[in-house]
């Protein structure tokens, strides 16, 4: 039963950032959107891809408050197991909520776009998968469904990184912060050029194409699910032995 309380606590913890996020979007919309419209002229208000902004937000949200929540849970006699599970549930809930909220904004935006040709609001997903051959309702439902997993993957990724960084001491942090980018941007291309005759980069390219460049959104879904599983497993390995740092 304490897992319910743990979930409630963490959702409570997320409410403020989420509200600030949507409030900011709203304000920025007013600022950049309404002003040209009000003052006439050739201004067009264009917002094509709130999901993109939300995606970044989800990643940042994952990075946020690992230590605070971890310590609070320990103080209140919650095991790391329960803390981790409740965190997963919380992140899933937030992903669902944000996905629905975004879709809601997009749908309203699309309706507004029909009304005025000075407004152009649509979703990133809608533009990307324009040619899906299904009716509108199913399309939106599918969009919500797939976006949930995208957001969950991102927030989990942020969570994994913040938990990893929590456990690393200063020296390891420096090593990781340097060596990971170095590996990706320097060592990998070099290796590929010298040993693999370009096959490695080609493989990576193909994988990226599969995930991002397909007409089938379910490629994205499968990739996200795999990524989620990996993040969950790695995060648990990192967290199960975590203790308060001196």
């Amino acid at each position: 039963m304490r897992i319910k309380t743990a979930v409630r606590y963490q959702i409570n913890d997320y409410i403020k950032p989420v509200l600030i996020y949507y409030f900011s979007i709203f304000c920025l919309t007013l600022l950049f959107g309404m002003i040209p419209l009000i003052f006439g002229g050739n201004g067009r208000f264009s917002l094509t891809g709130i999901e993109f902004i939300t995606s970044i937000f989800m990643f940042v949200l994952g990075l946020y408050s690992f230590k605070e929540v971890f310590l609070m849970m320990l103080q209140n006699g919650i095991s790391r197991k329960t803390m981790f599970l409740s965190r997963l549930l919380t992140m899933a809930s937030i992903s669902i909520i944000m996905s629905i909220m975004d879709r809601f904004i997009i749908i309203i935006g699309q309706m507004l776009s029909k009304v005025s040709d000075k407004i152009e609001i649509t979703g990133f997903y809608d533009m990307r998968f324009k040619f899906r051959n299904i009716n509108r309702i199913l399309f939106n439902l599918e969009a919500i469904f797939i976006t949930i997993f995208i957001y969950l993957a991102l927030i989990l990724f942020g969570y994994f990184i913040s938990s990893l960084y929590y456990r690393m001491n200063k020296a390891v942090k420096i090593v990781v912060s340097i060596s990971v980018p170095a590996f990706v941007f320097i060592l990998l291309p070099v290796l590929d050029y010298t040993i693999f005759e370009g096959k490695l980069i080609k493989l990576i390219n193909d994988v990226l194409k599969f995930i991002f460049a397909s007409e089938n959104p379910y490629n994205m879904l499968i990739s996200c699910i795999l990524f989620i599983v990996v993040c969950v497993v790695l995060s648990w390995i990192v967290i199960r032995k975590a203790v308060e740092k001196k």
Partner: protein
Amino acid sequence: MSIEVKKVIKNFGSTCALDKVTVTFEENKIYGLLGRNGAGKTTLLNIITNRIFSDAGEVLIDGIPARENDEALKKIYMMSEKDYYPANMKIKDIFRWTQEFYPDFDLEYAENLAEAFELNIKKNVKSLSTGYSSIFKVIIALSVNTPYVLLDEPVLGLDANHRDMFYRYLIEKYSETPSTYVISTHLIEEISNLVEHIIIIRKGKIIKDEAREELMSYGYTVSGKASLVDEYVRDKNVIGLDSIGGLKSAYVMGQIPRDKAPEGLEITKIDLQKLFIKLTDN
């Protein structure tokens, strides 16, 4: 119903912080957990409350292993100087959440205590002074109503008045609704009349685990002229000596002698702090 610590070992790198520590905290008693800085008190308490992991051995709370176990852990509340509460959270919100995690938490009692201590619960954690930082945690510890309450240096930073208040509220609470309190502290004199059972830890090992009366009855001081004292304690278990000029005081472990002291010698009881110092000196 008790907390059983069984052969717990904890190493930090090459240092052994706890060496096969075995001790039991029974229900409805006030324990004094005494030890010098770095002796292992906080490490022991942290292992009991699942904040760190032991390298060997186990801890059972009412028969259930405490490690990573919510059922066991909900019976314990620990108050420590480290801040595990979010820095920006208001005290009244912390009270509210504590009630969620520990349903027996008495919110009204906590609010009354806050008033008595003049703690403004609208403040957040980071804006509190060291003293009030301890105070709000102590208030929670007194209000939480778990069977086991661990207090690690509860009066750190408290002024004399607040310390007095704390002891009074603790005794009142304990008298009306007994539970188990383990007080880990350096301020031995202040708690020596408060505790029923004393556990002394020295360099990761338990060296004393006895009821206070037994411990106190098993030690005495012999004072007087140095040569007389030496003669008297020749065959006794002396744990420490103090001398000024020609006068000496010897601290002896053993049954307080029933017969009167020889001329020129005074035999008095030993106080807990002295006993502690002599037992834990290097």
